[in-house]
């Protein structure tokens, strides 16, 4: 199957973002908190994308911001998937009161807007990256739980799972060897989407001042720092916003492609 152009663009952009995030220290032209420029300078040879509210190079901060934003989003999505998928499969395989308990707990968590829960939790807990990742991961795991449980319920009624049960296999084998390999493709596609939500969520938190704390750079925080410049016609706040949008779109394109390739509904006939 030929790769569609949109997927190719998505892959190249996502790859570029990842590369920048990993090698930020070597790529960025200025150190993180070097405020040698003037306030809100325009584009110039010294500062390609201008400077921010206290004269730091915006390009460098975008590059460092990519590292922090992508790291936190990735870590919290991974945590969300580890938790959500495990408990989702468990609920589907065990059924009965375990399923009821987990499902109602998740319903309860989803009934409250996650932004509000996050704000409350982050106001109470000490603000550092670990806490941030834990809070976001746990909140996001509810959605992964729903998906994994739905997928696994379909698989758990297959005869091969019953055959494994009759053989006397324990829960671990059934979850990791019988169900997981068959549930992987919808989960991988979902991972891309959840990662994007994590990026948006972390940016929102930072914009509200409860996410990543200065002097660390992150895109949401950069929008917040520079938003006053908009009144004076300075573009500094738009650049991190554009970066968020670009990352979201490129990962989405990749996730879409994976979903099309792996789902039997869309991948096969008439494609």
């Amino acid at each position: 199957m030929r790769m569609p152009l949109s997927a190719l663009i998505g892959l190249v952009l996502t790859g570029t973002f990842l590369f920048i995030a990993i090698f930020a220290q070597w790529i960025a032209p200025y150190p993180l908190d070097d405020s040698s420029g003037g306030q809100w300078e325009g584009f110039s040879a010294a500062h390609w994308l201008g400077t921010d509210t206290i004269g730091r190079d915006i390009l460098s901060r975008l590059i460092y911001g990519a590292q922090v934003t992508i790291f936190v989003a990735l870590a919290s999505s991974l945590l969300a998937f580890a938790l959500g998928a495990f408990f989702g499969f468990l609920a589907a395989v065990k059924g009965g009161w375990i399923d009821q308990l987990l499902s109602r707990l998740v319903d309860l968590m989803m009934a409250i807007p996650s932004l509000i829960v996050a704000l409350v939790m982050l106001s109470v807990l000490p603000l550092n990256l670990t806490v941030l990742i834990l809070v976001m991961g746990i909140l996001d795991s509810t959605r992964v739980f729903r998906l994994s449980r739905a997928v696994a319920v379909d698989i758990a009624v297959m005869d091969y799972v019953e055959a494994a049960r009759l053989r006397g296999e324990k829960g671990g084998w059934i979850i990791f060897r019988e169900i997981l390999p068959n549930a992987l493709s919808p989960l991988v596609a979902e991972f891309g989407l959840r990662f994007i939500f994590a990026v948006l969520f972390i940016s929102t938190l930072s914009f509200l001042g409860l996410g990543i704390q200065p002097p660390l750079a992150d895109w949401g925080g950069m929008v917040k720092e520079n938003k006053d410049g908009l009144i004076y016609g300075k573009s500094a706040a738009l650049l991190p916003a554009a970066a968020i949008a670009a990352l979201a779109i490129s990962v989405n394109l990749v996730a879409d492609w994976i979903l099309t390739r792996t789902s039997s509904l869309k991948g096969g006939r008439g494609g």
Partner: protein
Amino acid sequence: MADPLLQIKGLVIEATSYPPGEPPKTVTLVHGVDLTLERGRVLGLIGESGAGKSTIGLSAMAYGRGGVRLTGGTIHLNGREIRLADARSLRRLRGREVTYVSQSAAASFNPAKQIMEQVIETCLSHGLCSKAEAEARARGLFRKLGLPNPDTIGNRYPHQVSGGQLQRCMTAMALCPKPDLVIFDEPTTALDVTTQIDVLAAIKEAIRDTGVAALYITHDLAVVAQVADEIMVLRHGRMVELGETGQIIHRPVQDYTKALVSVRGLDHAEKPPAPPVLQVQNVTARYRGTNFDVLKNVSIDLPAGQTLAVVGESGSGKSTLARAITGLLPPSQGRITFAGRELSADLAGRTKDDLREIQMIYQMADTAMNPRQTVGTIIGRPLEFYFGLKGAERDRRVQELLDQIEMGKGFADRYPAELSGGQKQRVCIARALAAKPKLIICDEVTSALDPLVADGILKLLLALQAQEHVAYLFITHDLATVKAISDKIAVMFKGAVVRYGQKSDVLTPPFDDYTDLLLSSVPEMELGWLEQVIAHRKMESAGN
């Protein structure tokens, strides 16, 4: 001489397949088939799955199912070429000159509309007659097809009538516009054998009375022999043999046809009674949240190394019995003794040896194997799990088992999707054997397979029984299979065992009413069998 009603010449049908990870490719389903059907005649199309019989049948109304293209040849209906006809003229033709009866009436009726509305829909949309006329015509057909309360049954919704009745309603729907040709696509395959005979008789009578021509598609030669004037045998999209019905079933010319005709000839000498390995005593069971027993006081014995066939219609409780024995559905009463020890009712309470010694083979080999595991893993896992075999030793044993199921080398690395239907079922047999069981429960293991493939599986099972001295609890609705494989038989009806004993005793009269009905309903490969049975039943009911 006038033109035949339907004349197909050199028909070629293609489709595009999308193998995962490879470029799409074109496959040819039908390679130049010729077919002629005169008015008022019935032609049976018979073949295994993939023979192209449904595809050819549908081409008689110039229709190809999703992605299927009629790419070559000519199709003349009533003297007009229709293969290349435009959509508008096809729409005029379908439902007026040609109609279609599908396998699953339950899936074809709209559950939200009354039956009458759907039966007369075609008449009205083609403007063939007024609504009152169409309804009168439909009621006449309901009567002719032997439906109860023909005047009011049309007011019911599809879920309010039985499966066999709904199939007859669908036949009425097809006949209502007075078409020239009806395509019957496996109309009785999804029905129980005792229901099938009534529907078959109704269809045959309706065809005769209305003088309509028909293409009758089925995989069951004995069924088609009852209704068709001529039979065309198909294989891999090519015609194998065409002839009058009598000639095909009594004097087949081609080897393939001979094999199809003789497929039910398998016979098995009954073994003498012996001490049982499995004893089911007074078992009663119900599903959680329901208030009726699906198993009622069932008692059966199964001697070691022998086969007990459990026969019955769908819903008779045969599969539930298997679930009770395996521990998936703990019985509410009764006890199950296996190899001298009483089994825990619940799966969780059974020892590893209990689990190992009772193995199960499923009807659908497709869903019984994890699509993401190789054949080597599927067969190797029980070896690892029960006997702790690892590495080279395990691989050697896997190969031994593959040899035992006559599959040989090179299969251990394949995935289930790379196997044929028969091979899949063989791998499931090997997985069961790997545990060295004393009892294998076979749940309709041949029902999803083509007759010749099923025959091979039954022969394999018999050979393995002789080698391994394993007992089979063989669940089936097919009496030919029962005769072929069993030593003992239990006939089940509505959750209870109504007849039970050695094979020769169960199959020898005098019968109880239900066993009589069941045995006499199995189609036999004889001309006029259907009429004999119906006449016999009428006589008996008149006598009562």
